[in-house]
C-alpha cells in the first residue's frame, strides 16, 4: 500500500513534466531538450525568491508556473523559431532544435550551479511543513496529494482541450501536416508560442512540487528527468494524452518495484530499458497512431 502512494506521487511528477514535452513534440514537432532545465530553474527561482521574502506555497506554485512559462516562451521565440526559419529541411531543423535545446539548457543550469556551488537546494525557507496523514497504516503527505491533484487536473484539462475545442483541433492538425494546416489558415507560430508557454508552466509546477516533496533537488536533476519523460512519452505514444498518463505511471511503478527488489543502483536503467524495448517492439507506442518514419 505504501508503494501505491509512492507510485501515485512519483508518476504524477513525471506526468506534469512529460505532458508539456509530449504535447509540444506531438503537435508542433519540437522535442525540447531544455525542458529539464526549465524544471530546475523554476524551483531555483523560487528558492532565490524565498531568500528575499516569505511566501506561502500556493504563491510559490504560481511563481514557478510563471517562471517556467516565460523561459519556455523565450526559448521558442529566441532559439527554436530562429532555427526553424533558417533550416533547409524538416530533418535539419529537427537535429538543430535538439542541439539548440541542449545549448539553451546549459545557460540556466550553469547559472544555478554557480550560485548554489553545485549543492542541492530546497524550499525549506518558506516555513512550509507538509502535514502527514496516516490512513489505515499508510502515510500520505499533503504535498503528495497536491501533486496527484495537480497532475490529474492538468492531464484532464489538456485532454479536453485537444479533443473538444476548435483550437485543440487546430493544434492537432499541425501535428499531422503543418503545411496543409497553414493553408487552412492556422497560424503555426502563435500556436507554437502558446504550446511552449503551457508546457513550460507545467514543468515549473512539477519542479516546485518535486522539490517540496523531496526536500531538495540539485541543478543536475533535470537531465535524468528528461530521459525518463522521453521514456514515458515513447511508451505511451507521441501525441496521445492518455498514452502519456499510462506511460508515466508504468514507469513510476516499474521504478518503485525495482527499488524495492534491488539495491537502489539499477533504478536509473529502468527508463533506458523501456525506451529500447518500446522502440524495438512497438515503435509507435501503446496508444500512438503515428507510424515512426521508416528509413
Amino acid at each position: 500500500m505504501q508503494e501505491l502512494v509512492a507510485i501515485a506521487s512519483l508518476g504524477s511528477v513525471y506526468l506534469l513534466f512529460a505532458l508539456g514535452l509530449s504535447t509540444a513534440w506531438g503537435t508542433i514537432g519540437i522535442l525540447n531538450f531544455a525542458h529539464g532545465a526549465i524544471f530546475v530553474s523554476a524551483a531555483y527561482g523560487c528558492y532565490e525568491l524565498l531568500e528575499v521574502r516569505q511566501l506561502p506555497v500556493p504563491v510559490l506554485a504560481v511563481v514557478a508556473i510563471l517562471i517556467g512559462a516565460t523561459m519556455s516562451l523565450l526559448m521558442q521565440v529566441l532559439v527554436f523559431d530562429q532555427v526553424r526559419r533558417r533550416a533547409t529541411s524538416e530533418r535539419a531543423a529537427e537535429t538543430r532544435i535538439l542541439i539548440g535545446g541542449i545549448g539553451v539548457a546549459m545557460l540556466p543550469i550553469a547559472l544555478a550551479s554557480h550560485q548554489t556551488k553545485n549543492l542541492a537546494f530546497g524550499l525549506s525557507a518558506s516555513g512550509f511543513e507538509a502535514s502527514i496523514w496516516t490512513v489505515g497504516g499508510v502515510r500520505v503527505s499533503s504535498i503528495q496529494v497536491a501533486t496527484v491533484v495537480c497532475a490529474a487536473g492538468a492531464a484532464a484539462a489538456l485532454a479536453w482541450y485537444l479533443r473538444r475545442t476548435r483550437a485543440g483541433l487546430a493544434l492537432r492538425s499541425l501535428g499531422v501536416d503543418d503545411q496543409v494546416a497553414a493553408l487552412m489558415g492556422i497560424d503555426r507560430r502563435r500556436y507554437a508560442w502558446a504550446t511552449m508557454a503551457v508546457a513550460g508552466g507545467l514543468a515549473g509546477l512539477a519542479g516546485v512540487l518535486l522539490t517540496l516533496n523531496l526536500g531538495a533537488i540539485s541543478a543536475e536533476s533535470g537531465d535524468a528527468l528528461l530521459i525518463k519523460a522521453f521514456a514515458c512519452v515513447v511508451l505511451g505514444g507521441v501525441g496521445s494524452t492518455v498514452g502519456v498518463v499510462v506511460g508515466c505511471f508504468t514507469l513510476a511503478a516499474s521504478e518503485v518495484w525495482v527499488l524495492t527488489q534491488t539495491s537502489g543502483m539499477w533504478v536509473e536503467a529502468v527508463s533506458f530499458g523501456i525506451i529500447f524495448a518500446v522502440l524495438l517492439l512497438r515503435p509507435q507506442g501503446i496508444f500512438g497512431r503515428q507510424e515512426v518514419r521508416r528509413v
Partner: protein
Amino acid sequence: MSAFYASNLVLVQATLVAILLALSIQVPLRLGVFSLAGVGSYGIGAYVSANLVLREEMGALPTMLVSGLVAAAVGLLLGVIIYRLAGLYLAMATIAFDLTVGVVALNGGDWTGGPVGLFGVFTNLTMGLLFGTVVLVLVLVHLTEVGRLSRRITTVREDPELAASMGVNVRAYRLTAFVVSGFLGGLAGCLNTLTRSAVGLQDVSFHLVVVALTTIIVGGALSWRGAVIGAVLFTWLPSVLEVVGEWQEFVYGLIVVLAAIFLPTGLYGLWCSVRRWLVDRMRPRPRPRPGSEPRPEAPSAAAAAEQEVAAR
C-alpha cells in the same frame, strides 16, 4: 616550442582524444545516422582498456586494438537492433544506450570500480603512437570524403531512396556507420584511460554527449576538419578563457546556441563559404548580359550518383 609543448602535454593529449570522440559521432552523422552511441563506446573502450592493462598487463597497441574491436562489436550489435530508427528516435535510443553503459559502470563491482573508478593504468604508450594513431584515423576518414565513396555517402545521407535505387546498399552503409562509430569511440575511450592512467564515471556521463555534439556543431558536421577545429577550440578554450573560468559552462552553452542558429555548417563550413566568396570576387568575369543563360549549378547528389552509374 618544446617548453610550451611540455607544459601543455595534457591539453595536447586531451585534444587528440577529443578529435577521435568527435569523429565517432561525426562519421554516422555524415551517413545520415543521427547516432550518439559513440559516447557509450567511449565508456566501453575506457573500461575495457583499464581491465586489459590491470589484469592482463597488455601493451599499449594491443590494448588499443582490442578496446576498439570490442566497442565496434557492441556497436554492430546495437546497429543491428536499432538501425531502422531515424531522426530523434534514433538519437534518444542511442542516448539511452550511453546512459545504460553508465549504469553498468556504476554497478560493475571490481570490473569497473563502481563510483570510485579504476586507477594506476600505466602502459608503454608514447606520444608518437598517440599522434600516429590519430593521424592514421584522420587519413582514413579523409579517404571517405573524396571521390566516389564520398559521393555515395552524400547520397545515402541526403536521399536514401535514391541511393538504394542506384544500387547502393543503404543498410550496409548504415551498419558500417555503427561499427566505425563504435571502433572510434572505443579507441578514444581507451586512449583517454591510457593518457590519464585512470577511468571513472565521468567517462560515461551525459555531459560527454554534450561535449561531442558541441565540438561537431561548432566545428562543422560534414568534414573531419570540422571535428579537428572543434576539438582544438573546446579543449583550449578554458585555458584561454581564464577570465570566465567559472562561467565556462555558460559560455559553452551560448556558443552552442549561436552555432545551432547561425552556423548550419559550422566554422569549417563558414570558412569554405568565405573562401568561395573571395575566389568569386577575385575572378574577373564578363558581366552576364540580361537574357543570357544562367550559370550552371553545382552538380547535385543525384547527378553525382548518375555519373557514378554511367562510369561503371
